[in-house]
């Protein structure tokens, strides 16, 4: 994070307006979900416990997860220690001059996959509407699940005109993108997704969404690549299902329009890349952050994030972004921006103590340590 980005964010009224608009749309929806679906709290406890169990022995669980899918027909399984290795594997699978449709995925942001695939000569499309807008703006997502909340209808229309989508209203723009992207889905050589949860028991990949772009990206192309960061491994299908339900409920859009349960199938080559990228090496105090289900609620509810958006942070912004930056080894002075009010912990379904994590990160910064030396 650069200091000037924060000043830019504070002066940018559309960030604040967009986040507050999103807060108004989603805050009550989440409260209602908690009230209506009493099982959510129980699910959160189960998922947190399972994630901590997996974290306690990542090597064993990663091996188990890889084995669960290795034996299947039409499936290749890989392991990447970091982003560089993951990009190399993807490059070998994809090659060049391909049309690639991508589902929105934070892990691919982590390893800058889209930019890399474009550089080596591919046509790459973010298929989620918000993520496409962000791609065309050449910016980073403003929220972990709602990437384009800071753009007005007018700004979105201007950006979408770059790909020939005409219209002024959200409805006209969405219809234009539907038509534009449908062609890309049908022509695509490769589909790429992340993974919300991976069942180490059955090798199934769970992905939750509302638009249908993940379903199309992972179903239509002949080659499908799934990037699974190892924190997504869970012991069973049931826990994976609980996680995707939690993620949708705590974002505020529940039930989700689609739950995808992907696995190798006849008629498609599947490639699954397990990625570590700092997770195994995370120090003890960051362990809790690895139970994060990336619902983004702590971002929307945070008073600092409401002013700065994801410009406060690196790949991941806001309160959750501090812990994740620590895990990825890219934490800087941004951890001093938090007011430590505790709202993030209060609203987090996994009850992650982010203020404690931020205090620990500050201590390290003051001591001049980097995470590797802790």
């Amino acid at each position: 994070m650069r200091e000037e980005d924060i000043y830019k964010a504070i002066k940018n009224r559309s960030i604040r307006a967009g986040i507050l608009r999103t807060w108004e749309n989603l805050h009550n929806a989440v409260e209602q979900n908690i009230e209506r679906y009493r099982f959510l709290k129980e699910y959160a406890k189960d998922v947190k416990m399972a994630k901590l169990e997996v974290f306690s022995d990542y090597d064993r669980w990663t091996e188990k997860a890889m084995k669960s899918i290795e034996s299947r027909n039409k499936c290749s399984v890989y392991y990447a220690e970091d982003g560089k290795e993951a990009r190399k594997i993807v490059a070998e699978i994809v090659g060049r001059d391909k049309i690639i449709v991508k589902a929105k995925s934070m892990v691919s942001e982590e390893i800058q996959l889209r930019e890399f695939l474009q550089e080596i000569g591919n046509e790459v499309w973010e298929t989620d509407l918000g993520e496409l807008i962000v791609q065309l703006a050449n910016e980073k997502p403003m929220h972990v699940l709602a990437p384009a909340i800071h753009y007005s209808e007018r700004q979105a229309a201007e950006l979408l005109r770059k790909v020939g989508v005409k219209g002024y209203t959200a409805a006209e723009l969405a219809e234009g993108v539907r038509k534009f992207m449908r062609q890309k889905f049908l022509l695509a050589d490769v589909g790429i997704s992340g993974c919300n949860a991976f069942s180490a028991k059955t090798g199934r990949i769970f992905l939750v969404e509302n638009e249908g772009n993940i379903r199309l990206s992972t179903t239509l192309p002949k080659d499908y690549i799934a990037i699974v960061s190892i924190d997504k491994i869970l012991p069973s299908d049931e826990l994976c299902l609980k996680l995707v339900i939690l993620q949708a409920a705590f974002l505020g859009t529940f039930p989700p329009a689609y739950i995808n349960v992907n696995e190798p199938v006849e008629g498609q080559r599947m490639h699954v890349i397990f990625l570590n990228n700092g997770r195994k090496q995370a120090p003890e105090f960051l362990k809790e952050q690895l139970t994060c289900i990336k619902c983004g609620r702590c971002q929307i509810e945070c008073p600092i994030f409401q002013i700065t958006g994801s410009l406060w942070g690196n790949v991941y912004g806001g309160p959750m972004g501090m812990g994740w930056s620590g895990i990825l080894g890219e934490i800087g002075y941004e951890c001093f921006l938090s007011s430590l009010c505790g709202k993030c912990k209060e609203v987090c379904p996994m009850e992650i103590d982010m203020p404690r994590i931020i205090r620990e990160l500050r201590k390290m910064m003051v001591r001049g340590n980097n995470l590797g030396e802790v």
Partner: protein
Amino acid sequence: MPNEVLELLNQLIETLKRNSVEVYISKDAERDVERLKSEDSFICNALSIAADTGIVFFGGFESRKNSALAEHHIAIIRRDAVCKNVIEAYNLAISKSNVIFATSTASKTGDIEGKLIWGMHGPKKFTVVLEISEELYGGIA
């Protein structure tokens, strides 16, 4: 027993309506679905449905593809596919098919100024035809 079943079915119908799903109650789904279908629709039998959330499970890779490409997705649901909750529904679905997927409403987005737009990439409309017996038919609210 029929009272419990009726309660479950009424809960399901309420949930589906809350999820903006078009619902038809039918004594003969195969016959009634004929009236709904068009060249842009895709009809398939559901493996299971959760009454508390309205999440519907389907099976098969081809169905996944065709349902995602259709403008209108129509699901036929029979009484024995109705489960109390999503875990039960998942387990029932996976016992019937290896490749499963779930849908609870039409495709949607709120990515531009939070405005809700239906039919982003997938079907613009999702319809459930719930087939129940003569005996239960009269008890539906």
